[in-house]
């Protein structure tokens, strides 16, 4: 009977929701960046699945239902963008400069560090677009001959890292404007960072959502050119 139940969407959906609710409770109690709800839920579910010897594809039967909602959520990012359009247009110069510099810094630092530390060509290519939203990052890496699943994993890890400490790190280094914090977190940590920004600040969340699209398109255009220069 257990096996049968594990093969229905009920399992994946309920463990995800229960895990997330518990992680949120833990976060509200502690208010510590170490207990970021997404990172804790992901970590907890991985431990649970490995502990109970349940393969990922069985979890995904239900998990895919939740993942599906990500698509319309990204579309919905147009709503805060539209309602804060005046404030965003007033900052168009700083937004464009910030994303452009962030895009180059991301490709340069991720690819460059991996190369200096002796990473293979495939790994360097797979790392370079790690700050970009998953579907864009994967299509770039496929074209340049990297390892798409590795990129997918690194994109998620980068997102969790940015979501966990992005707003706090920005405050620490003296970035004060909420729009600049949103731009930084969205450029570095795409959708997962944006999800966190939406909880922190409305304008920051809107700008962060914009940064996903801008950095994604810019990286899709620039990374193949940079790759040609170095190969």
């Amino acid at each position: 009977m257990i096996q049968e139940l594990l093969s229905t969407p009920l399992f994946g959906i309920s463990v995800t929701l229960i895990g997330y609710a518990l992680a949120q409770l833990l976060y509200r109690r502690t208010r510590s960046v170490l207990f970021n709800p997404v990172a804790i839920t992901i970590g907890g579910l991985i431990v649970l699945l490995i502990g109970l010897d349940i393969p990922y594809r069985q979890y995904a039967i239900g998990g895919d239902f939740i993942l599906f909602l990500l698509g319309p959520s990204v579309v919905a990012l147009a709503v805060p963008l539209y309602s804060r359009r005046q404030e965003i247009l007033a900052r168009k110069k700083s937004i464009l400069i910030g994303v452009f510099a962030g895009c180059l810094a991301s490709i340069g630092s991720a690819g460059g560090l991996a190369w200096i530390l002796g990473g293979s060509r495939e790994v360097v290519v797979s790392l370079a677009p790690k700050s970009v939203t998953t579907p864009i990052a994967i299509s770039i890496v496929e074209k340049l001959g990297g390892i798409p699943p590795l990129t997918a994993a690194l994109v998620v890890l980068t997102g969790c890292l940015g979501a966990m400490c992005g707003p706090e790190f920005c405050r620490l280094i003296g970035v004060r404007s909420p729009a600049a914090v949103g731009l930084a977190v969205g450029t570095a940590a795409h959708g997962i960072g944006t999800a966190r920004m939406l909880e922190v600040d409305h304008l920051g969340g809107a700008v962060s959502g914009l940064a996903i699209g801008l950095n994604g398109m810019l990286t899709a255009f620039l990374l193949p050119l940079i790759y040609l220069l170095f190969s």
Partner: protein
Amino acid sequence: MVRGFAILLICQLLGEMIGRSLGLPIPGNVLGMVLLLISLRSGLVRLAWVSEIADLLLGHMSLFFVPAGVGVMTYAALIGKEWLPITVATVVSTFVVMAVTGWLADRYETGGGE
């Protein structure tokens, strides 16, 4: 709420169709976001139709990333052999990007005037 959800899905669907037919590397949901923005701007879609569902979805957006994150477990072995360059580059680069973008955006925002 149902109308709003349908509008979001239609935008995503059109985004997928445009992206695939033009062979763009940009995902359908990002193109859908652009389409919804244009629809709101042109008055084709009213803000009131989509604001309720957008607030609901965006308020829980973190949750929707959980399954993709759990999927990392299936690729854990890929990180194995070259874990040092991968980990250092991923962590350091994430902070470098936030610092570069945050500092520049903050500086040009205050310098450029409101």
